[in-house]
């Protein structure tokens, strides 16, 4: 008999890993024990050498669906005398054990089969889950993660559930949210006036939806507002009630229905079917759906049903549903029943409620697959609280708390070579979001057992996150906005700390620059610790400060004026108060200079008549411009002048003005091409002359797949780092800030 001490690292707690090991060990006839501790899972096993070898192989090869095995380390184990008689699961004891909580996961195939099986005791039960699926982070109240500290605490397990919970051979062994119709949460429907209705809630909801009504559905991380996505009148009514004229709605459908309206690629199907079950942007194909779902967009945001309730509802409907977040305009998603009754009463005709509380608001994650690879646009449900490994050279880094930006706030913590990038919170001036920011600080600190030694914030003194950092009384690292974007994309590509400099093309909305002006179209040559600005868009005034980020016409006016095309500006926007704004710009009243690439996209989108004068949602103009450009395909670009790294769009405007008959899709594509060629040229030169080892792409504008594809073409032959898991937008800012602060603390690479 031989003994082995096997250490398993990764996401191996709270995912059924110990019973999995227990079953393997019994299969192989081994004795010993398996336990959780602060480092992961520890297996002590004794038996035949061949059986031990098979166990080791199966640990990563056959791991449970929600597990992620980062490392399996094997050492000899001196088997005690007498040897254990059997293989057991040891209770977790050590401090720090069981602190890992996995992300919420979509209903697994086994649970789905059960709710569809008339003979099963969980037939049609909306809260069915097991170790491989179900709610996690959204029901967590406190640590360690066990039922008593989740919102399942009020539901006492019935004997049948308890038996499953305690049986290591059962799929529900130690599944904390285990429930059944006898003992678990209850579903009901109620009217907009709050009167509970008799009858099956799913049937009532399906009936209302078929009749074109709007239904509020309590989900995992918050309430959704649902309506029949094939019914234009229902969609229009939802837009009217939500005061949301144009921002795309997310859709939910079963696989068969989805395939009628889209043709997902293999990679897209894989993302849709992942336990994270994000919204995935997929090109329209097949049977057309109402244009009002996503006006002007070439893609729709789809997700598969991810709770039993969703499955039951969609099974009953057989058609796609709009599933948009249930909130007041500008506020985050509603999570409480009373809150829903109060705030959504004017929006929904019917409420599908349940009595399992949502402990934590988590939006649906949003992803897309571009020709260059996957991209995360919003990191939330299903992805948090997962961790990201830090690159080589950060092992000894201080524990950093990074507080992110203002608009797509998310925080990040680093420790022991891992980064915990928290969920998308939203805009911090919103009172409920600000409250959630405070809760996230507490939550993630506890989850990570984190004791920050330094706080990283943006340079911008007016971001609420910056002020929160200043008030913490800890050493502060101020990180330039676009340097943080650059560090984020380097970090998630595991660019080593000593890996040399990278030329970062950071195309963004706005961030405060190191020189006090507003940046946003930059080529930064740098590493984690520092940078220099080797390229930038020629600046133009942001006429009216933040108003310029809402009204594309302002940017068109200043750009045309700068290109000597003031008369064209007058002709293109006769109804705007141009003269008054020009005087304000001349007088320097709220008109700081900015090299923002996002504002240039806004200007061009408005020039082509693609974007409205005033946007109804952030990023609208850029998304619409991308959508029309995608209709044309690659080709020549408009000329941008490049001199000493300054990229001047004036020649582009002049060329476009001289060729006003150019079809809109072609003109839009030429804009993307010209801009990409200019920026790629500056970055490429830095690689060619040895200043940079690679090119990196980041910033909110890099969510644009047409632009990304053009950049990739102009960068062919050069190593390119792009975002895969961390948002290119400000949702990834905190991760980059953390890396910069950590690198500065470590000194020279």
């Amino acid at each position, binding site marked *: 008999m031989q003994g082995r001490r096997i250490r398993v690292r990764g996401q191996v707690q709270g995912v059924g890993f110990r019973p999995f090991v227990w079953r393997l060990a019994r299969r192989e006839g081994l004795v010993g024990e398996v336990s959780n501790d602060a480092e992961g899972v520890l297996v002590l096993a004794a038996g035949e050498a061949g059986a031990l070898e098979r166990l080791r192989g199966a640990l990563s090869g056959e791991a449970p669906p929600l597990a992620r095995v980062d490392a399996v380390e094997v050492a000899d184990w001196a088997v005690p005398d007498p040897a254990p008689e059997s293989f057991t699961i040891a209770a977790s004891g050590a401090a720090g054990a069981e602190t890992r909580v996995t992300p919420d996961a979509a209903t697994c195939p086994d649970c789905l089969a059960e709710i569809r099986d008339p003979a099963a005791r969980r037939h049609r039960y909306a809260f069915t889950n097991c170790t491989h699926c179900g709610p996690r982070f959204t029901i967590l109240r406190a640590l360690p993660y066990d039922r008593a500290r989740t919102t399942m605490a009020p539901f006492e397990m019935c004997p049948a559930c308890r038996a499953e919970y305690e049986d290591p051979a059962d799929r529900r062994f130690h599944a904390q949210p285990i429930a059944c119709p006898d003992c678990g949460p209850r579903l009901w429907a109620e009217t907009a006036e709050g009167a509970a209705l008799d009858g099956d809630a799913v049937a009532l909801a399906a009936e209302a939806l078929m009749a074109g009504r709007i239904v509020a559905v309590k989900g995992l991380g918050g309430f959704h507002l649902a309506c029949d996505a094939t019914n234009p009148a229902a969609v229009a009514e939802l837009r009217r009630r939500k*005061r949301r004229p144009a921002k795309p709605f997310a859709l939910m459908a079963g696989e068969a229905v989805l395939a009628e309206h889209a043709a997902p690629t293999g990679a897209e199907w894989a993302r849709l079917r992942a336990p994270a079950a994000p919204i995935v942007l997929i090109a329209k194909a097949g049977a057309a759906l109402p244009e009002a779902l996503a006006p002007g967009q070439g893609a729709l945001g789809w997700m598969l049903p991810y709770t039993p309730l969703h499955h039951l509802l969609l099974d009953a409907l057989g058609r796609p549903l709009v599933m948009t977040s249930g909130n*007041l*305009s*500008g*506020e985050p998603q509603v999570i409480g029943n009373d809150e829903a009754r109060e*705030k959504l009463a004017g929006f929904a005709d019917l409420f599908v409620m349940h009595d399992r509380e949502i402990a934590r608001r988590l939006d649906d994650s949003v992803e897309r697959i571009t020709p260059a690879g996957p991209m995360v646009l919003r990191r939330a449900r299903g992805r948090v609280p997962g961790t990201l490994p830090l690159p080589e050279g950060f092992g000894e880094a201080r524990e950093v708390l990074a507080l992110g*930006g*203002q*608009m*797509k706030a998310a925080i990040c913590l680093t420790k022991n070579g891992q980064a915990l990038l928290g969920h998308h919170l939203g805009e*911090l*001036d*919103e*009172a*409920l979001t*600000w409250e959630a920011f405070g809760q996230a600080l507490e939550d993630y600190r506890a989850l990570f057992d984190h004791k920050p030694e330094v706080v990283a914030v943006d340079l*911008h*003194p*007016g*971001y*609420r996150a910056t*002020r929160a950092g200043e008030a913490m009384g800890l050493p502060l690292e101020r990180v330039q*906005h676009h340097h943080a974007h650059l560090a984020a994309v380097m970090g998630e590509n595991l660019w080593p700390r000593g890996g040399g400099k990278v030329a970062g093309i950071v195309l*963004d*909305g*706005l*961030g*405060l620059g190191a020189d006090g002006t*507003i940046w946003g179209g930059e080529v930064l040559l740098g590493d984690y610790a520092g940078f220099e600005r080797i390229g930038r868009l020629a600046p133009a005034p*942001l*006429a*009216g*400060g*933040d*108003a*310029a*980020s*809402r009204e594309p016409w302002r940017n068109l006016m200043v750009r045309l004026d700068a290109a000597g095309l003031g008369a064209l500006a007058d002709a293109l926007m006769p109804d705007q*108060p141009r003269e*008054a*704004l020009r*005087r*304000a710009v001349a*007088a*320097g*009243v*709220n008109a*700081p200079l*900015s090299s923002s690439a*996002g504002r240039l996209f806004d200007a061009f989108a408005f020039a082509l008549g693609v974007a409205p004068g005033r946007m109804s949602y*952030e990023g609208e103009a850029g998304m619409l411009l991308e959508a029309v450009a995608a209709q044309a395909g690659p080709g020549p670009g408009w000329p941008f002048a490049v001199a000493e790294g300054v990229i001047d769009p004036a020649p582009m405007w002049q060329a476009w003005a001289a060729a006003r008959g150019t079809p809109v899709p072609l003109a839009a594509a030429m804009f993307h091409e010209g801009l990409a060629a200019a920026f790629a040229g500056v970055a490429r030169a830095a690689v060619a002359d040895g200043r940079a080892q690679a090119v990196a792409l980041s910033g*909110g504008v890099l969510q644009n797949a047409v632009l990304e594809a053009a950049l990739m073409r102009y960068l062919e032959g050069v190593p390119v780092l792009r975002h895969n898991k961390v948002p290119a*937008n*400000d949702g990834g800012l905190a991760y980059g800030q953390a890396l910069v602060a950590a690198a500065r603390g470590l000194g020279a690479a």
Partner: protein
Amino acid sequence: MTLAHGGGGSAMRDLIEEVFTGAFEPDGMEDQARLEAGALAEPGARLAFTTDSFVVSPVEFPGGDIGTLAVNGTVNDLAVGGARPLWLSAAFIIEEGTDFALLRRIVASMKGEAERAGVRIVTGDTKVVGRGAADRVFVTTSGVGVIPPGRDIAAAHIRPGDVAIVNGVLGDHGACILAARGDLALSSDLQSDCAGLGHLMEAILAAAPNARAARDCTRGGLASALNEMAEAAGVGIEIEETALPLRAEVKGTCELLGLDPLYLANEGRLVVFVPKAEAQATLAAMRAVDTGAGATIIGRATEGPAGQVTMRTLFGGSRIVDMLVGEQLPRIC
């Protein structure tokens, strides 16, 4: 005006005689003001004392000039603390080359505003500096007032549930100065709201014996005044976007320039907190005074979070209204 006017010789005496002294204290001024202390001698009365410097460009604007600001600013600082303003001092730093006629107009404004407010300008000083060392004229005023016995208003007294009232439309002064300064030629009839608020405060305090606190909404606007009050009282303050009195021209100017009217300066606006039970009486009393004609309820104090000011928006969301940090830099990424 030449440097000799500041030299202390006869030219200066002439200037002071000519422009200043006659206007303020016809009976002649000593180097020090000698005042009857009777009002202060009342048992329980407290002396209120404040000072402020005024630098505004342009010096004259629709609805007033630096003189109106200098008198009313200091009068209002006294009044919102519950004091009855009595005496002011006025000190002038004058740029060489400044037009005498301008100085006379400023002095006339000061005299008029002082009379309206029932205060006397009892002492003063002038200095002349070289070109570029000042922008035409800077004025510093100090003021003394008396807080009657038993009167005690302070931001720390605000309690959850108290009602916030302003005395009229917001941002007129700030918008008017912006329009004048940038030569924006915004077709508007905007006038500064500059006014003394002493009489209005007396009316408020008579109608609302338990009035908690008042602030004039000067630099930093209503937003800054509310933040200071929330902080001092350890309460939250919630205002309603739909209840904010704003002139269409001010709204339009703010939209064009991308500015938030909550942060625009006012020179004749105050916000006062009174117990809910006294709110209607306060409103009625305020509306009976000319400077309070536009009085309206804009919000209330809440349990918290302490120090946080929020605004219920048109569509029901709740936005945090912060203190302004430095200049307003764009934040939308």
